């Protein structure tokens, strides 16, 4: 534990505390967990990148159906391969922390659910989202009729300006009505 603390300089630690919603202990724990994931040959790199496949082995993400989307959204990698640096990792944990605001949580939730990254949730996104929620295999999926009925219902409810898609403000409007969202949109190491 002592070595972990010494690896993270004090000023950097306080900077992270300022820029994220995490406490000191959480940042140190995150650092410990992250360094465990870094490959041996990258240990000397000042800001090593951990590939997505390794991040997904974390037990906190392993059983999450949105794990790949989460990595893609928080990755700052140029090649869009979903790899994370330690700071990206902290951003991830910060957005999913207990004290993050509803606004930031709903923003990231929207981006995670926006599978084609076009800035709106259209029918394709909604279908993928529902499939993630119910399970991807053929026997766990909803039937096409059910899916159609469901998506029509969703658009009926949340698409306020009736343009056929759900945009960020509409999404946040819906989310802000749900008192459960903040408590369930959480990942704790």
């Amino acid at each position: 534990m002592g070595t972990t603390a010494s690896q993270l300089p004090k000023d950097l630690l306080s900077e992270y505390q300022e820029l994220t919603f995490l406490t000191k202990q959480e940042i140190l724990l995150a650092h410990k967990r992250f360094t465990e994931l870094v490959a041996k040959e990258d240990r000397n790199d000042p800001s090593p990148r951990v590939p997505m496949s390794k991040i997904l082995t974390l037990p906190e993400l392993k059983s999450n159906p949105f794990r790949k989307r989460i990595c893609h959204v928080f990755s700052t990698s140029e090649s869009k391969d979903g790899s994370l640096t330690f700071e990206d990792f902290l951003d991830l944990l910060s957005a999913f922390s207990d004290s993050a605001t509803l606004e930031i949580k709903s923003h990231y939730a929207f981006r995670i659910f926006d599978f084609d990254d076009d800035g709106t949730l259209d029918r394709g996104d909604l279908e993928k989202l529902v499939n993630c929620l119910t399970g991807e295999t053929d026997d766990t999926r909803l039937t096409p009729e059910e899916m159609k009925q469901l998506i029509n219902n969703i658009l009926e409810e949340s698409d306020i300006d009736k343009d056929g898609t759900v945009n960020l403000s509409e999404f946040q409007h819906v989310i802000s009505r749900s008192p459960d969202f903040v408590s369930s949109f959480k990942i704790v190491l």
Partner: protein
Amino acid sequence: MADKQASGSFLRLMSEESQASDLIIVFCDDHQETILDQGRCQGAPRRSLGGYSEDEDAWYPTRRWDRNVPLRNLPVSMQEKRDIRDRRNLQRRTIGCWESWRRSQRTVRRRMLEQMVQALSALQLWGRTLHSIEGRFGVSVKVYFVFLRYLVYLNLFNCLLTGALIQAPVFIFRNNIYSSTFKENDSYLDFFLGTGFLERSPVFYGFYTRGSLDGKCLNTPILFLLGVFSVLIFSLVMLVRRTVNGYKHKWMLSGRYNFSMSFKVFCSWDFCIHEPKSAAFKQSNIRNDLKMDLEEERFELLKSQRTLKVRVKIYFLRILLNTVVVILLGAAFCLIYIGTKYSHQQKDSKNYPWLYSLLLQYLPPIIITLVNFMLPHIFRVIVKFEDYSFTSQVNITLVRCIFLKLACLALFLFFLYDTLQKSPQNNQSCWENQFGKEMYKLLVFDLLATFTDTFFIMLPKKLLSEMYPECFLLKVMGRQKFLIQLNVLDLVYTQTVTWVGLFYCPMLTQICVCKLFAIFYIKKFAVQRCCKPTQRMFRASTSSVLFHFVLLLGLLMAFVVLGINLNKLKPSPTCGPFLGSSTVFNVTTMCVDSLPVHVGDFIKFMSSEAFAVPLIVVEILFLTSSMSLRSANNKCIERLKDMLVTCSSDKWYLVKQQAAWLQDQRSPQQSSSRAGSVEGSAPPEPRAHLDFHPLPERSVSQPCDTEPVPTHSRPPWNES
């Protein structure tokens, strides 16, 4: 690259901050302005596909540049947060030192507040345990434990109140030093029966004597009364507050602003879940839930198409089953009546062995607990035949269980009251202690039942099913679930008994806290060791509203019982703080009489009908005005919604117009053939919006070749 973008955004800052910061106000004021803002917010991301990071400004035009927003609240990556911070620091240098000092002070204050909140939340009871339960079983099981914790807090506050107002004065101003120590003829059985040693202890009403504190308006009886009523009123205020808060949420979730499907899709995934097993479970839950809802929707559709014959049949069945339910309830009440009567008749005869007499003493609580244990399960089976939709099935069962639980208690109290009233007042034992003892026994027995249920029924069952997984009998019984509604009802029952018995057994709040602690650990064990998550989860928020509402019913019942008892029964002449006075309220009348004439008159006026009538009238006026305000607001919301739709269609109309116009500019020779069909020349992006149909009057397109579209109607996002 980043610098360049930053400077670009910086220039835009000036114009955007002023316009978009009060989007809503602008929206209400000016239609045109709204289109401009909407265009900026929505059009921008579509302009460059996949480019979130480049268009963050468009997403968060105001938040990003509002210097008061903490950096961590910005949805950007860490490096960008650093850039923004540097820029903010640069700006801070250019502003005056007063302003800079003020801002830094604000930051310091905010941080201190955050740290305080964090430290306080670390003090929360059982934080880690709840977290782990939430991780394994999801939010809905946690709701039960949060409710339990809330009751513990409530009772701790109540303990403080009773300790300060009831126990402390008696201990300080006691004039006869009572020996409340353990005597030889006391047995440990007394702890279960509330007799002997406990009867002489501060647990019961009889211990509290008048003492040496003997002012007109400051004496032990008045403090006793004040203590009891402050506990009840404090609980009432807290509960009403919580119920109303929850109800507001629930109301917003239901009715015309129904987002249930969207919630189920957008908010149902519990990101706390770690284990693959529970993840798979959650997925099947969500799937079942969605299917159920869709089915219910279809069920509603079918219901509206039912024939008369089918309808008559269903109603007949329902009436029949309801009769069965009523008969069952009646039988249960009869059983309780007989049990109570028998127990009271036999209790004075001493010639039974101790075990039998203990059983006899505990007969009423045993019957009540048995009835409460059996009937809910029967109700759950009965309701399945009634052909309701699933949600109403759950609700109806819950309502029947609530009715059973509280009615049982009410019935028991009524019989107790009846026997107390009939029994001659001149016997030496004090009836208040008797009443307190019954409440004490109910509380203790409920705890024993919980303990037995967990360690002697659930645990062996679980162990057996682990040892013999193929056993047919065990499979028939099914796996054990943690039935949250029934467990919550138990808690409500405990709390109601505490409130009812408070007057006669002032230490009941302390006992209740101990009991709730014990229940917490027992239930934690039950959940973690013996149970699998329930097949159906329910929405945490709406159900917790129901829990608090039921608790409120319990409190109202306590008020009624106490009101009747205090008004109808004479305080016993041999014990307690009120000995010698004909009613409990004699002490308050004496206090009012001792006050100066004006104050006394004022208090009498406040408690008379002359004051109540104007009060009610004012309340009615207030209520009426709130109602009319509500309906006006509803209308306003409808209008604003319509306006949003119109705005959106306006926007698309303009986009199409402009696209057509551009097309005409580029190829004037084609325009004559294209005139009148603007649809075909829509820009490529709106392909995803094929379902969109503009309003009829909007879609009438003008021939574009005759006159170019005036510049002011050009969509703003193409100007830059």
